[in-house]
């Protein structure tokens, strides 16, 4: 039997039971959509985060306490209380003194804070930093002035607020020179930062930047522990060498490697590999639903074989060999899953671009589409083999006798 005949037979049989074929395909459509959409979300998040790393300044290095053992344990939220590992101002002074390349060091601690002016209250993040914070993080001042060295050394209660904090608390007047209350204490706004948007370590638009020395004095932060230090390499090409120098300096000083220092490249590969695992996991979850869809195909093909036992008998009487019957049912099952797969691809690309894109970043890769369609056809063949073999092996006499 030639392929065109088989194809025509299969389409006719699929079209002959429209509702049933559609419901069977629905299992595959949902499975394919699950694979593509979950991969699109995974890939979208990955690209988003990597873009943020790229945008965070190409020469920046990140120094955190505690030896690096993976992305989940080395972020800004790491508490060092348990391990005793810490980075102190003295460590940073040693780095500034001994690193032979031009660098700018910016220590910072963060905590959640409540900001209030009059009757308006908002939650934000408090960043306790120094005068170098703005340069290292590419923050520009929209109005007023930044935190300066004297604010840090004098522990003055001067703060710089983010664009969103400014627009929320000061919708009508210029905030510069005004007083706000942070966690119940009074502070003076000396400047406002320009809008920057989401970056790797938070959103500076929702932040209030305070002198680092105020944290310990007024917010109960631990003495001389710096949770996140950003070190800017003035010449980005030096960053690799600087990482080595800092490692040597601190290891000698601490007697062990109880810190981690990552440059952008290391950070990118660290995030990239972790996020790829995440995307693969999501695809695997989607793949499970595709297998469920495949079982649906097997189910409906078994029903179809039983219903068409007599047809199989007739075809065999007219000279159909086992492989002809096998091909007929396999083509039908793979066509069901293939069409379902293509509908699933179109549907999920539309949903990803038109709907999900509004809430989370998505990115549909060509490879995910090819993987999904290939997998769906494979599912159709795999789950079609058993029913097709059952049909092919029917004895003509028994098949003809079937009512």
């Amino acid at each position, binding site marked *: *039997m030639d392929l065109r005949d088989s194809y025509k037979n299969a389409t006719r049989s699929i079209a002959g039971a429209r509702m049933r074929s559609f419901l069977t395909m629905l299992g595959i459509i949902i499975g394919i959509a699950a694979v593509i959409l979950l991969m699109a979300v995974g890939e979208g998040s990955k690209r988003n985060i990597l873009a943020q790393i790229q945008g965070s300044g190409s020469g920046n290095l990140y120094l955190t306490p505690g030896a690096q053992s993976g992305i989940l344990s080395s972020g800004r939220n790491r508490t060092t209380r348990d391990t005793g590992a810490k980075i102190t101002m003295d460590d940073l002074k040693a780095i500034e003194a001994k690193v032979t390349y031009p660098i700018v060091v910016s220590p910072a601690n963060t905590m959640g804070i409540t900001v209030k002016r009059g009757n308006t209250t908002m939650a934000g993040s408090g960043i306790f930093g120094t005068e170098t914070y703005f340069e290292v993080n590419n923050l520009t001042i929209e109005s007023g002035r930044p935190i300066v060295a004297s604010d840090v050394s004098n522990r003055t209660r001067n703060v710089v607020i983010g664009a969103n904090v400014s627009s929320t608390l000061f919708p009508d007047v210029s905030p510069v020179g005004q007083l706000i209350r942070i966690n119940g204490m009074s502070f003076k706004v000396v400047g406002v930062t320009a809008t920057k948007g989401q970056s790797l370590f938070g959103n500076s638009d929702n932040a209030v930047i305070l002198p680092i020395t105020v944290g310990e004095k007024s917010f109960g932060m631990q003495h001389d522990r710096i949770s996140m230090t950003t070190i800017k390499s003035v010449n980005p090409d030096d960053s690799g060498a600087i990482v080595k120098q800092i490692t040597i300096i601190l290891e000698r000083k601490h007697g062990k490697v109880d810190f981690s220092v990552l440059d952008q490249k290391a950070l990118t590969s660290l995030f990239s590999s972790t996020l790829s695992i995440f995307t693969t996991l999501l695809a695997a979850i989607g793949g499970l639903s595709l297998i469920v869809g495949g079982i649906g195909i097997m189910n409906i093909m078994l029903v179809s074989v039983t219903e068409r036992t007599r*047809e199989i008998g007739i*075809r065999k009487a007219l*000279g159909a060999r*086992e492989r002809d019957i096998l091909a007929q049912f396999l083509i039908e099952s793979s066509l069901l899953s293939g069409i379902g797969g293509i509908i699933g691809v179109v549907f999920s690309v539309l949903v990803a671009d038109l709907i999900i894109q509004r809430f989370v970043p998505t990115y549909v890769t060509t490879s995910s589409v090819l993987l999904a369609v290939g997998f769906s056809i494979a599912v159709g063949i795999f789950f079609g083999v058993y029913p097709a073999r059952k049909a092919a092996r029917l004895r*003509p*006499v028994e098949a*003809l006798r079937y009512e």
Partner: protein
Amino acid sequence: MELIQLTDIRKIYMIGGVTIEALAGVSLDIGAQEFVAIMGPSGSGKSTLMHILGCLDSPTSGRYMFKGRDVSGLRSDELAAVRNQDMGFVFQAYNLLPQMSALENVMLPLSYATKPVRDGRRKAEELLEHVGLKDRMKNRPVEMSGGEQQRVAIARSLMMDPSIIMADEPTGNLNSKGAREVIDLLKALHEEGKTIIYVTHDDNIGAQAERVIRIRDGLVVVDEGD
């Protein structure tokens, strides 16, 4: 040389642990261009004999020589090729595929032809014309009477120019007019030189044949050809 030579053919079924001997040693010869009726009461083994003659089933023991070739031990795909090339089947229940038109049904054996057939479509049209269904080619089986469906089935059985037409109770589902038409058609085909073997339990229908073989309890009891 005879077209068909059966030697001591036995067919034994196992149904629920009980063995049933449907054919208990049948030996008979059928020559080319014969017009044969196989008759017997239900359960006599006449349908089983028909299935073995038509290569739809294999005997448990015995030898079946078809056109001088032993077909008793052939594999299922080899039997399929024999059926496609040499056997034309007509069944009691017509056995047309409901989703296909009359023309497509007649052309169906072409799908399984082991060698290419030229002008298959034109040949199918000519066959349908020959059985008097020139105007019904595009109709589906449900749109046709029983007699018309059976004539489509006869046209289909002729598609590959088989050596033999095998008809299993071809008039069993038909009224007397339809039955008459079908028998006349088979007779006409016989006069054109076709070998025809049909099974029936109806004495009137059986009487139309030139040779009647009567089966009872899996054995040939009367064979007018001897």
